[in-house]
């Protein structure tokens, strides 16, 4: 069959149509779908977000440490800033991110190795419970209630 013998509409059908994507923004955000996801999908999205938070914190931390090169006066004024209650609240957020990332990472490592697959949901909720309790304890401790 020659090209001219093709059925009507063949050329149009060969053009790729649009691909529907999930996510709030462009196609690259498809993994962040806030609509009716299960615990696994939400855990995956939160795992990526907390991973980014931890990476950003790492570079901030390195930047802050470089202030020591400037001298003790710069470091002292910085310390007065970061010991404010509002700044300490960010520490609680960081601890929550680290705990979620770590605990969910254990779950992903086990399940992703084919171990305890049937208990992955239970592990998720157990990790969430442990992490929540630890964050509450840390918040009370850091913000001075303990």
């Amino acid at each position, binding site marked *: 069959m020659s090209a001219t013998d093709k059925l009507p509409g063949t050329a149009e059908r060969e053009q790729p149509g*649009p691909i*529907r*994507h999930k996510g709030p923004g462009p*196609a690259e955000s*498809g993994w962040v779908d806030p*609509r009716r996801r299960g615990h696994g999908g939400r855990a*995956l*999205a939160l795992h990526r977000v907390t991973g980014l938070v931890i990476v950003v914190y790492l570079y901030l931390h390195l930047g802050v440490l470089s202030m020591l090169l400037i001298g003790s006066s710069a470091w002292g004024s910085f310390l007065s800033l970061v010991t404010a209650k509002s700044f300490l609240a960010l520490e609680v957020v960081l601890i929550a991110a680290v705990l979620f990332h770590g605990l969910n990472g254990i779950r992903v490592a086990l399940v992703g*190795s084919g171990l305890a697959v049937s208990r*992955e949901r239970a592990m998720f909720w157990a990790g969430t419970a442990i992490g929540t309790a630890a964050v509450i304890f840390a918040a009370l401790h850091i913000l001075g209630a303990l």
Partner: protein
Amino acid sequence: MTTSVSTQQETRRFRVYRYKRGDGGERFDEFEVPVGPHTTVLDALRWIQRHRDPSLALRHSCLHASCGTCGVQVDGREALACVCAVRDQGAQITVEPLANLPVLTDLVVEMHGFFERFPHAHPIIRSSGAPADADDGEVHLEGTHEITLDVPSAVPLHHHPHHDRHRAAPPGADFVRLEDCIECGLCLSACPVAATSHDYVGPAALAAAERLLEEPRGVRREDVLAWASRPEAVWRCHVGFECTKACPADAIPAERIMALRRELMFGGPDDEESKR
């Protein structure tokens, strides 16, 4: 079915995705649809097609969740429209085509990219049954070709009524429905990894590969494992379990992906040989 829908008084507002080639891009059309207690999303879409807009394109066939052709997103969640009850949804229901596959028109996606992902060695014989003589660990199936297959005696097979020479599994044996996948594409649509990685072969193809390990049908085990261990295959999964949640046939694709990983990490073909 459509007649019974139209006699009901209660209505729901449907937002339906529309796309026609050369027709100004994508949009959503809204329709007020009368519904009853047993109306499905597919009933409602067919009502729209017959009473409001005949140009609405949708794909369906069996009407009982067997053929897997009517997969759509209902309020962002993958579902077979034929068994998705309207009463379980909200007052406004958004219906979109499956994600991660190109749209042909309206709610119809091009499934070629879905089937293309399956392992090329996947056998075309679809029937399954417990062996007529399970003791010798071999099954003889006749189809287009006659193939002699090695089947581990530990793998329970479900009885197929059309294969008289296959007997049912022994009493008390656990039945594992190895043929449950209806290839509807819902898992690929729900997969958060497939959303950003079009190279990823996806849950259905990996589950099919794992099924080949359980019931090889003449396919070499090491070929399946080599296929599954490619970078765009089993290691791309990020353990979101959305595929298992979306699967309407309980084919447990996520669990099968994890079983493949376990096989790759802890039990290769050499280990398996040594067990025999």
